């Protein structure tokens, strides 16, 4: 066989194998990953933007998206915020399960259509000055339930209750004619109570619930670092980079990530990174912010699962009222916010698949948020 023909044959084979590998990569390679719209240290606006707001500066919630945006925030004072899922299938199912006798139609619905149910809630109290922001979050609550196997029913629960005290600060590190950059930090103490377990209905029948679910605790100090690069052009985007939960004791559990039954909530408590791209376009009719965010982990077996978290957002701000549309592959939302000097309230209509497509039906839910500024 002549060498050129040999090379052609090898090339052809390699091309086929590479194509096959690419196709394989398109197929999900992860276990039971779960994602949440509401994370720790969040706000309603951040949640409604599917966390794609790390370049959205000048808003009261900007420093929650990226501590490097702290220098651009001018508000001062005390604020109280609450964000949570207020309606949806999970809420309805939870209410029916806990407070009403269980019926057969409910059981069928739970197994066939809505075997994953989730509830998240966050509240915090902040004191903000031009130099720093001090935030106390008494509650970040997360409750994920996955019910499976009608032959011998089991329930996988992932519960977390987090209390944190956070200090945020930042500064501009470079201010030029065309290009600016800033650096910001969050330093926080966390007290993290969690339980991630599976029990059967038989266990529930013979054991008290408090003995079935044994909570463990992590506490410690962790931090976030954020970088923000902006420019004065109209269309050239701004960039951000963040390292989240540095030095946290909570690690991504790879066994749970590969498990079909144990849940792993990702991009929440463990160390991860984000890169963001965005731009604010100010017009006489209001400001439009667009952003794209990509969270990821280093040293992961595969980064394919991170692609499912890529989120994009668009926010149209008319000062007293703001509309936003945001989405990723599995999270979509439309939100409305009413902002005044002392009182902000928001409602978001969402269509989410917190199990990243594992559950066939997406959940239609309503998130609401309240912010009181003093």
């Amino acid at each position, binding site marked *: 066989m002549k060498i*050129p023909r040999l090379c052609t044959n090898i090339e052809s084979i390699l091309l086929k194998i*590479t194509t096959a590998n690419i196709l394989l990569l398109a197929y999900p390679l992860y*276990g039971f990953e779960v994602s949440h719209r509401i994370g720790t240290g969040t706000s309603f606006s951040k949640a409604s933007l599917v966390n794609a707001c790390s370049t959205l500066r000048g808003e009261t919630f900007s420093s929650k998206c990226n501590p490097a945006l702290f220098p651009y925030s001018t508000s001062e004072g005390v604020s109280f915020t609450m964000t949570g899922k207020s309606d949806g299938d999970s809420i309805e199912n939870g209410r029916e399960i*806990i*407070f*009403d*006798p269980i019926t057969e139609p409910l*059981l069928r619905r739970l197994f066939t259509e809505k075997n994953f149910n989730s509830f998240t809630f966050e509240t915090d109290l902040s004191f903000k000055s031009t130099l720093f922001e001090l935030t106390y979050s008494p509650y970040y609550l997360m409750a994920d339930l996955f019910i499976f196997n009608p032959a011998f029913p089991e329930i996988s629960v992932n519960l977390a209750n987090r209390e944190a005290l956070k200090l945020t600060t930042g500064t501009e590190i470079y201010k030029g004619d065309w290009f600016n950059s800033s650096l910001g930090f969050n330093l926080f103490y966390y007290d993290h109570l969690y339980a991630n377990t599976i029990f059967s209905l038989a266990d529930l029948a013979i054991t008290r619930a408090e003995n079935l679910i044994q909570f463990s605790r992590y506490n410690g100090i962790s931090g976030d670092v954020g970088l923000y690069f902006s420019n004065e052009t109209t269309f050239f985007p701004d960039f951000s980079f963040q390292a989240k939960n540095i030095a946290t004791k909570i690690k991504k559990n790879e066994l749970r990530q*590969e498990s079909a039954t144990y849940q792993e909530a990702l991009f929440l408590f463990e160390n991860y990174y984000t890169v963001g791209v965005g731009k604010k376009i100010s017009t006489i009719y209001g400001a439009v912010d667009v952003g794209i965010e990509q969270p990821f982990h280093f040293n992961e077996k595969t980064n394919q699962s991170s692609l499912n978290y890529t989120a994009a957002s668009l926010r149209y701000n008319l000062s007293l009222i703001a509309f936003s549309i945001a989405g990723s592959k599995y999270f979509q939302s439309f939100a409305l916010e009413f902002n005044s000097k002392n009182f902000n309230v928001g409602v978001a209509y969402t269509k989410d698949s917190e199990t990243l497509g594992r559950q066939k039906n997406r959940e239609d839910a309503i998130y609401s948020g309240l912010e009181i500024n003093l």
Partner: protein
Amino acid sequence: MLYRLTLLLLIFLSISCAGKKEEADQNQQVIQGIIDDLNSDNADAALATIDLKLKENPANEEMLYWKAQAYAIKAGIDVYSLFPLMKLKFFDVAISEWGQMMKYSKRDRETVSRVTGNDKKSDTQEKIEQRKKEIKEMDDSEITFEITEPYHTPNRLSSKDPSIPDSKDLFEISYSAYINSPLLLEKFYWYTQLIYEYEPTIDEINERVNKEFPRLVIRQNALQQLNKKMERIAQQKNSQGMVRILFALFDGIDVIKKSPTLNSTKVSYIYDAVTLLEEMSKYLPSKEHRLSKNGMRHTGLLSSLLIINAIKESVDLNKIKEPIDFICHVDTDKLIANYGQLRFGFLHSRSILEDSGFSERNGDNFDNFIKLLENSPEELDENTKIMHKYRINLIKDNNC
């Protein structure tokens, strides 16, 4: 071209290294798919996937577990078919009230244990055993007794004849009396014959009996009486146990009626599911493993349902008005035909009974029952069937 080839090779290598699908990822993905199929009530699709994986590795414990779950669904045993039973126990109250309900269910579980088997030896039986030991170890000198109601009949056997040397008067005394002793539960009748060379008085006879009476006889009688008492107590307990079982069945009639009805195909799936779960447990590292615990409990559930199904098929539940009707309205032929189900069910519910502490509370009776089942044949031959049919009909005739 070489540049293209090199570039392609680099891409190929980088993608292959970065995106190589590991066996663990594949396995868990497969399990995800199986769980999703089972949740959607698509057991056939789940079985197709499972059988492929088991061909690669027949000892894959996770696949064996899921196969058993799929078979249980094929047998119609799932949370939906068991819903009427679960409603009785749990679902009639909201979860927020289960805490209160648990306090009462603990008492029910202990009741089942007391009802369905004999208790351990009672205090009386233990005392009897202790007493027997004392009597066996007692010295003869410690055994006292008294003779009451003595009666004697003299009988001259021979008279002395001066003409015959060595001739003498001989009297045979037929002697009877009641012997009483602190060792005995009740006095006993004793008879003997005594030889005298003169005609003795009753006092002389009594004195001789007092001296020569063998203490062994008292000891033997005492032990015999205690053994009979033990037998009576055991018989009483058996009868009580049978009555309690009948009452338990009567109390559980709602559960029996509401439990799923199984045809021969479904029974066969249950047999397979239980066999798979027991095979799976051999490959698991410990009994505390999640699949091991689930397997044991699921085995217990499936086995119990087999027993209940056998009862349901063998007894006309609509005619049950009182506990004894479980005997009177049993269809003997069907009961014998369901022998296999009953045997399988009791044998394989052993693990859950051990786990619940039932076997510990019922001691030897439980072990003896299990041994009896293990030694019994899987199927009865015709002669044995006829014998059992005769016995069951005899019980029915005697009680109904």
